[in-house]
């Protein structure tokens, strides 16, 4: 009986060793990586034998062995599935890659199926024919997968962009990430080192597998990118997201500051502050009402004769006029357009010194530079009365002054910044 028992054990060991010897030869011949420096570890019976599991030899047989990668590294935490007589048994490899599993046996011989699963290694499947209650020490080699750490940074223009949804897709595996923002670090500094960055470790069995990265954020055009495992060399991937053509959450209020310079005008400076509230009447949202206050600085030149034999002299008169009143804007294009959101409007108000009522019609367009700030370009028509001083030169002292009232008409091109809230 004892001889019979040992004969079966011997046969089982021979069968298992043959099976894995073939497997190992095949892997080594098909996979080689010169860049990996192998650790000098190898199968060690004494380590395997030191891993003891309590079992009943009369009703169970012991499946025991060691798992080492083809690069001679112990593989721990491998999920081991064993199917015997239609039942599944599970265990994990422990330190030094050793494992042992006591499996109930009804027959002294039979087929068991063994599957090794580890996220960093290829799945290993094999079948054993067991003739005895002990299998001897199994010595199994696993082939690592390709593993890469994908790192990227997403920008809007030159600014890192946080909160971007990043989806990394590889075969059936999908990871959803968000780009990081700034944060207070352990030393209580506002740390923006990783602003706009993401990273993820992914692995694949084949170097020709593709990785797809999709990026999207509200208000931006989505961006896609793909590469092969073998193409990625570990560099930081840089992506730029472009703004979408429309503002996703356009506020109803606009605060504008406009300035005009003596550009294409006759020495006139203009500063204007205005506030508008956009009305929503059903689906109609193209009318804004508000108020406007502005200051117009006009430099008016007059010329007059002086001493005989000398050219005429010019005298400047500077006029500052405040203007305030209600204003209305009609949006010619949709107001939430990012570029060339065009409008026309008018302000009816009072010129504060030498009071008179005036109207300033205007037409303009704006370009959003981010989600709520825009730059506007506007042409405005002015018509107001100016009391221009005319000088008459005298050889005997100060020139005499006479005041003429003129109508000052002009078109002013002004540049503005606008905050939408």
């Amino acid at each position, binding site marked *: 009986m004892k001889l019979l028992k040992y004969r079966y054990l011997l046969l089982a060991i021979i069968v298992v060793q043959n099976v894995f010897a073939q497997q190992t030869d095949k892997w080594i011949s098909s996979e080689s990586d010169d860049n990996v420096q192998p650790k000098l570890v190898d199968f060690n019976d004494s380590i395997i034998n030191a891993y003891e599991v309590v079992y009943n030899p009369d009703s169970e047989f012991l499946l025991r062995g060691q798992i080492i990668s083809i690069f001679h590294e112990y593989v721990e935490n491998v999920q081991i599935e064993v199917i015997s007589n239609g039942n599944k048994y599970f265990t994990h490899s422990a330190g030094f890659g050793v494992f042992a599993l006591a499996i109930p046996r009804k027959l002294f011989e039979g087929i068991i199926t063994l599957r090794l699963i580890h996220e960093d290694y290829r799945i290993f499947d094999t079948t054993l024919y067991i003739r005895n209650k002990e299998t001897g020490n199994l010595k199994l080699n696993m082939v690592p997968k390709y593993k890469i750490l994908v790192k990227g940074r997403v920008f809007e223009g030159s600014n890192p962009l946080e909160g971007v949804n990043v989806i990394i897709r590889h075969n059936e595996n999908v990871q959803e990430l968000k780009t990081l923002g700034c944060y207070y670090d352990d030393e209580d500094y506002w740390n923006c080192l990783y602003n706009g960055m993401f990273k993820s470790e992914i692995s694949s069995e084949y170097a020709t597998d593709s990785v797809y990265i999709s990026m999207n954020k509200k208000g931006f055009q989505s961006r896609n990118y793909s590469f092969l495992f073998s193409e990625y060399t570990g560099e930081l991937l840089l992506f730029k997201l472009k703004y979408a053509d429309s503002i996703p959450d356009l506020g109803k209020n606009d605060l504008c500051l406009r300035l005009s310079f003596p550009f294409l005008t006759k020495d006139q400076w203009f500063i204007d502050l205005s506030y508008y509230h956009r009305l929503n009447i059903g689906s109609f949202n193209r009318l804004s009402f508000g108020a406007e206050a502005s200051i117009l600085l006009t430099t008016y030149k007059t010329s007059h004769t002086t001493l005989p*034999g000398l050219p005429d002299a*010019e005298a400047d008169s500077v006029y*500052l006029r405040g203007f305030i009143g209600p204003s209305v804007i009609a949006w010619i294009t949709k107001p939430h357009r990012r570029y060339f959101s065009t409008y026309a409007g008018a302000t009816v108000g009072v010129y504060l010194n030498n009071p008179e009522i005036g109207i300033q019609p205007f037409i303009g367009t704006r370009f959003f530079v981010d989600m709520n700030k825009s730059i506007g370009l506007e042409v405005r028509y002015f018509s107001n009365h100016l*009391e221009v001083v005319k000088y008459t030169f005298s050889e005997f002292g100060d020139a005499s002054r006479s005041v003429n009232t003129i109508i000052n008409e002009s078109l002013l091109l002004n540049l503005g910044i606008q905050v939408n809230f």
Partner: protein
Amino acid sequence: MIKSILPIIFIALFISSCEKDEGTTDIYNEDLIFTRSIKINIPSYSYISGKGTQIFVRGDTSYFSPVSDTLSVEPVFAWDTVNVALLHIGIFTEEIQVSQNRIQNSNSMIWAWHSGMESGSDGYVKYSDGISVSLGEYQGSAIPLIPLNKYYWAVWAWNPSGTAIWFSSRQLTFVVEDR
């Protein structure tokens, strides 16, 4: 936010609603013919008259002297250069009277030179460089002064636009020498 901005806008608008008042200045020089102007210095100098004699002019130092300088019938006038485009010098038969920054007795001016004339330059003018004046109007070439008569002279200059006097000298006197 709007509530806090609106008062600032109103204040700015009211402050802005003022026209710039030109011509006012804090300068005050009582000795000058135009008291609200910068002084044109008249240094001591000498020149050779038509008769070949050397004439000494005390300049500003004679202003406080009861005795006037004695000059030739065609004197020479000198002052520190002002470097302005509009400059004028005049000889009057009576004391120059200025009110509201303008010479009131312009009819008493008998000779003038200004920076629009071809001869003479800022800082040094001969009598023959100027022209005679009658009733405040420029006439032809200069008529020699009358011997033993007392005259008053001064220099003044305008700002670049010619609207206000910015520089002037003291009013100096001289008596024309006998023939």
